[in-house]
């Protein structure tokens, strides 16, 4: 029995001056599966993280939700287990199993006690490689997903995110297609089986094991399971795509809303952009922490909202930089003006040396708890390194990249990426009370009702 002091003893000695990714190995199995192992003695839990390249961008136009529904169905019956048996076995171990898809990959993340590594691997591999997609389960999941898409309208903050996609990116863009009743209605079992057969193959998979485990038996287990998958062909990434964006405004009418939710967006960068570290740092100052310019103006100094932020997407293709907040219906114009004013001033005046130093310290100080503390965080980082074609310098050189950012360069990047014109607005609220207020923000205004099916697409 280990003492907790031992259990928690660090494998990466950190100094405030640097961070290091713990040791790991990478190898490619004969069928193309990329395997990462990061044994890290500690809390006796082991994480599996399987990435299948493709994700949302692999959903055919008009069939959004295909990758997500396929992921969800992986546990609903396999060659050896019914859906019920799978759940009973998983829950009996106190394990977790999550399967979902994002902009560029499907991800299966499962976690088990150290001693259950073999069973955990068997369950995880069985789901991914031998899912049988029983017709009855497919019907159930599809019908539930359709209700889920409808229920999302009852949560304004989640709903506005869906309306944002087609309006900002355009439906021709792989990120511009929300999952709605119509797209889910077009999915069939045959389509799902074909998709899984094409995507869940050796050359398209990365398997990461991180946590408290012994590398040798784990690798042997992986060879027997994932190593036996058909090699198939790697998913060919979609052609480069640009958001439609532009100076336009979408107004979503929700007559019972007592506050207005709004987003103000412009095109941003990709996960691999050479300026990503610098721009994240700048975005931290703009809208990524409590004392950020946006939160300070709209919340701390004026009490207009509970929170205002700016989110910078980091996907395979360039995403959006989005101001996001809400305020009571009566102060809609005031809050929107203020958010725009913050952006204008930042673009015109730039930041000070003191602000830059504060952001650098903040990003460095919070990084360990956000990215390096637990095995699941570390597995996520290894997955990003593989899918986006990065290397361990993503972590190891982070602090030197932060240190290298000069004030001059920071302000140059602000002028280039945080522009106060040509912005795309998405506003959700009581249209009868805010229609006249918001029309001044863009030359073209489109209005939809929240009760209409879909998300304005």
């Amino acid at each position, binding site marked *: 029995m280990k003492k907790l002091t031992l259990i*928690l*003893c660090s494998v990466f000695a950190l100094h405030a001056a640097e961070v290091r990714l713990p040791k790991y190995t990478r190898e490619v199995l004969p069928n193309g599966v990329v395997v990462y192992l990061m044994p890290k003695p500690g809390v006796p839990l082991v994480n599996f993280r399987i990435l299948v390249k493709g994700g949302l961008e692999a959903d055919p136009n008009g069939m959004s939700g295909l990758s997500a529904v396929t992921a969800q169905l992986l546990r609903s019956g396999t060659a050896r287990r019914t859906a*019920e048996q799978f759940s009973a076995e998983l829950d009996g171990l106190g394990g977790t199993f999550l399967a979902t898809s994002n902009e560029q990959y499907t991800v299966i993340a499962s976690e088990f006690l150290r001693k259950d590594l073999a069973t955990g691997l068997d369950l995880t591999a069985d789901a991914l490689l031998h899912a049988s997609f029983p017709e009855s389960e497919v019907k159930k999941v599809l019908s539930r997903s359709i209700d889920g898409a409808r229920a999302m309208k009852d949560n304004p903050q989640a709903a506005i995110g869906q309306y944002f996609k087609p309006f900002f990116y355009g439906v021709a863009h792989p990120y511009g297609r929300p999952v709605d009743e119509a797209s889910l209605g077009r999915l069939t079992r045959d389509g799902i089986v074909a998709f899984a057969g094409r995507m869940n193959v050796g050359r398209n998979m990365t398997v990461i094991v991180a946590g408290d485990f012994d590398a040798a038996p784990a690798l042997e287990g992986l060879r027997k399971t994932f190593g036996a998958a058909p090699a198939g062909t790697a998913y060919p990434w979609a052609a480069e795509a640009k958001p439609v964006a532009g100076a336009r405004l979408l107004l979503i009418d929700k007559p*019972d809303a007592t506050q207005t939710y709004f987003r103000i967006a412009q095109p941003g960068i990709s996960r691999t952009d050479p300026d990503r570290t610098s721009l994240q740092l700048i975005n931290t100052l703009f809208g990524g922490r409590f004392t950020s310019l946006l939160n300070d103006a709209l919340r701390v100094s004026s009490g207009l909202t509970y929170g205002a932020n700016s989110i910078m997407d980091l996907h395979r293709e360039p995403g959006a930089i989005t101001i996001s907040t809400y305020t009571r219906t009566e102060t809609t114009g005031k809050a929107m003006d203020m958010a725009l004013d913050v952006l204008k001033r930042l673009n015109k005046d730039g930041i000070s040396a003191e602000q830059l130093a*504060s952001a650098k310290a903040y990003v460095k100080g919070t990084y360990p708890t956000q990215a390096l503390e637990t095995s699941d965080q570390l597995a996520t980082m290894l997955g990003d390194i593989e899918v986006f074609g990065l290397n361990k310098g993503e972590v190891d050189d982070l602090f030197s990249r932060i240190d290298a950012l000069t004030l001059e360069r920071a302000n140059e990047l602000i002028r280039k990426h945080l522009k106060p014109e040509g912005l795309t607005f998405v506003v959700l609220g009581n249209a009868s009370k805010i229609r006249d207020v918001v029309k001044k923000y863009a030359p073209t205004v489109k209005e939809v009702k929240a009760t209409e099916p879909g998300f304005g697409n």
Partner: protein
Amino acid sequence: MRVFLSFLLVTCALQAQPGTVKSHILPNGLKVLIQEDHGIPNVAMYLFFKIGARNERPGTTGVSHFFEHMMFNGAKKYGPKQFDNEMEKAGGNNNAYTSPDLTVYTDWFPSTALELMFDMEADRMQNLAFDPKIIESERGVVYSERRTSVDNSNSGILFEQMRAAAFTAHPYHWPVVGWPSDIEGWTMEDLRSHYKTGYAPNNCVLVVVGDVTEQQVMALTKKYLEAIPQQPPPPVVRTKEPEQLGERRVIVRKQAQLPVQLIGYHVPDSRDADATVLEVIDALLTSGQSSRLYSRMVDKDQIALNVGAQVSRSLDPGLFVFSMTPRSGIDPARTEKVLFEEIEKLRTAPVPDAELQKAKNQLLARQYRQLKTISGRANLLGTYEIYRGDYNKLFTSDKDIEAVTAADIRRVATKYFSEKNRTVATLIPEVK
């Protein structure tokens, strides 16, 4: 047998911990818990103040939560905005939360900022400023929080209404965020008296977990916190909720795509021996896709989009709350009937051994996952210290769970999950 073994392994891991938590009480009553962990160069510092919505009264509901906000708005040495500015500049960030029982401040920062954090926490614990202009601005922030989490949230507004009906006398009747008229009405005097009693060192548990040493923490505690005088504790909450004598029903009509249902049963406080049995019942019914309610309602019968349960820790007798979203076209009466059928099964038939063991394993694994991070451990240590009366109970919680029998499940389900003891709240979609 495999299932049983994994249970034992968790047990061992929990037992490995007690020696590493150091506990001190200062002469002014401040309790300090310290756990060293040098895995990452960071610290989680949590301050639990034993004051919350239950210590309020009509007219000042929500004042504890409002105070949680005011604690960031300037004291004597560190003025308005400085707490956050200094903390972020030193590489840290923070949050805070208010519950019906507690107000908790959560600081995360690199160990290099340890002394700064003690200095700033001490400053706001004893010398908070009360600037009328800032109070007015913060009122707007809190109202915005209420609009987001209650007024424009279907489940939020239903929860508020359900609790208000379930509790008629005890302060759990009102929402933590406060009634709208009270948010508009607090006075400076309300705030001052709340601060004096609530934020005294004898009313606080300080938990520090992470890249620190016991000596370091105690030296700073003495330097910054020892001189703060103790105060008379908040008045005892005298009111006890009278026994419920019949089912209560609440209807909320609101624009919505789908209905929402919340069904609450009165249950004892967290120190009661039945609290652990209720946790096991929660796992049996709602944890994982093999749980009884998920497998029946979401999967087999396909009548609910989701189903869950919540048994919050509470200092006074609280509620065990079931939540469901009926699928479109499903009458809420049907989901409700199925829920009651499943509850009836718990009352009448013993839970099979394997199923009971599964629920126990899930609970232990869940607790274990909370120990992965310094913040998770800081939160658990403080929570056990306050709700169970001793942080050491965290390390014997596995034994409490292990001791639950099928007979306990039946007895507890029969005792609390009765028709007379429940409040049924339904949000019915309204088409405008």
